[in-house]
């Protein structure tokens, strides 16, 4: 489990988090999303121990050991690695730091990564897969993935996600993903957290979210429902409402439509830009 308590963090004068709290149970697959620059990557870095909080604590389950980083797999959006090293040197370094016997390199070979190639010579897709394999070799209890899935081609994306699904099928692993694109990962996610100005604006399971956020197409705005945002057309508007519940079907004028995750998040964010 991950317990973030009273977290405060600033980048110089820019206050990103103040008294931020979040608790993730073991084995949950969580999505953190929000507009660019809201602090998603920062939060992930704080969890990974790569950034140090100004105040507050981030605690992990005791079984991760005295230094939780040993069991945290972190893939940053910068895909930070020692670029001047060759792939085999990079693997050797990783093994020695984490005390691993071996690294499963089937995928590395599958993506045609040469052992003698320098890391900086790899394509983004290859580098992502290399980073993933390095990270998964720890058998991490916690996997933190910053938005890199959608910078790689569709095939490697699937390969990447397959690895994660395989691991989830084998053992309990808490996964936190930062993404602004959802369509490949929508069915993996259990919990959705939307950040706004350093705070949690939405924190729901994905099922609840889909049940509570609907699109209502009507001429006039439905009253007694909070409208997140709306799109206006010539003779009607699409109103994105929250929270919806089943009883409203009868009373509402207009057509009610279910939404996918991208539409839901867009509705929340759209309200911010209005």
């Amino acid at each position: 489990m991950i317990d973030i308590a009273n977290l405060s963090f600033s980048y110089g004068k820019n206050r990103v988090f103040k008294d931020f709290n979040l608790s993730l149970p073991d084995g949950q697959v969580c999505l953190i999303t929000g507009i660019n620059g809201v602090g998603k990557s920062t939060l992930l870095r704080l969890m990974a121990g790569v950034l140090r909080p100004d105040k507050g604590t981030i605690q992990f389950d005791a079984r991760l050991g005295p230094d939780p980083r040993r069991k945290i797999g972190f893939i940053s959006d910068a895909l930070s690695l020692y670029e001047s090293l060759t792939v085999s040197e990079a693997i050797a370094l990783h093994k020695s730091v984490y005390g691993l016997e071996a690294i499963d390199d089937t995928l590395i070979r599958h993506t045609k990564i040469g052992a003698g190639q320098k890391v900086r010579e790899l394509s983004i897709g290859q580098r992502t897969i290399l980073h993933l394999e390095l990270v998964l070799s720890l058998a991490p209890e916690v996997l933190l993935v910053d938005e890199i899935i959608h910078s790689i081609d569709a095939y490697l994306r699937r390969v990447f996600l397959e690895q994660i699904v395989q691991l989830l099928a084998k053992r309990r692993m808490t996964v936190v993903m930062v993404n602004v694109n959802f369509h490949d990962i929508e069915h993996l996610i259990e919990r959705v957290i939307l950040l706004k100005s350093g705070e949690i604006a939405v924190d729901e399971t994905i099922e609840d979210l889909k049940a509570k956020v609907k699109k209502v197409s009507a001429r006039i705005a439905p009253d007694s429902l909070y409208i997140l945002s709306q799109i206006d057309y010539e003779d009607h508007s699409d109103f994105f409402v929250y929270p919806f519940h089943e009883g409203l079907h009868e009373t509402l004028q207009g057509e009610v439509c279910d939404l996918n995750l991208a539409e839901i998040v867009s509705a929340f964010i759209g309200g911010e830009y209005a």
Partner: protein
Amino acid sequence: MLKKEIRDALKRFVESLVGLFIIFFVYIGEILFTRIGLDYKSLVRTGFVITLVIYAIYAGATVFQSERKDRAFEYLFSFPLTRRKIMTVKLAPRLGLILALAGAATIIAGRGLLEKNGIIVLMLFFSALFLSIGVFSIVINLCGVSIMYLIFFEGQLVFAFLLSKLGANFKGYFATLAPQVASAIVLLVPFAIAFWLTFRRMDVRPIKLQMKTYYLIILPTLMVLTALIVVFHKRLASGL
């Protein structure tokens, strides 16, 4: 765009002022070497010493070179290694190499030179020096680090001189070495403290945001040293 170009032009000028320091350094060095008395053997030894000096400086300045070039700080800090462990692993080989070379230099120099000029001490002092300046290399380039080293080097001489003036009497085999060791240690303290306080809390935030503690200790130290060098410069040259 013009504003940026003007700023850049001024920046490069400041960097090129290092030329002035090199002149100063050569001047002091000239005096030192004239004192020793150069001959062929001495030239070889001097060459060795200069290489060692340059290496000590370079090794210190490049402690975080690979992380800087490879943008690997994030990766490094995600390792399950404490800051202390990281520094140990980074410094041990570099320090070890310097000390080994210093040992070789001492053997080559012979016993007489050891007593007179304390080459080992020089090497130890440089080792300590590069140890505490490593983090500086993250922030600025080799040029800035060189300036700092030069100030430190001169400052060490000043201190040794001051110590002898204060009547510090050292007896025995290491009589000539002692003041230099002492001054090196004295100067090491602020640098080491400044470095450790900064590095201990370092993370992947922009480096400039994290250097407050370091500058708070180092800048006054450098100013004091420079002042001392300027004040005692004449006496240093004649007193040697």
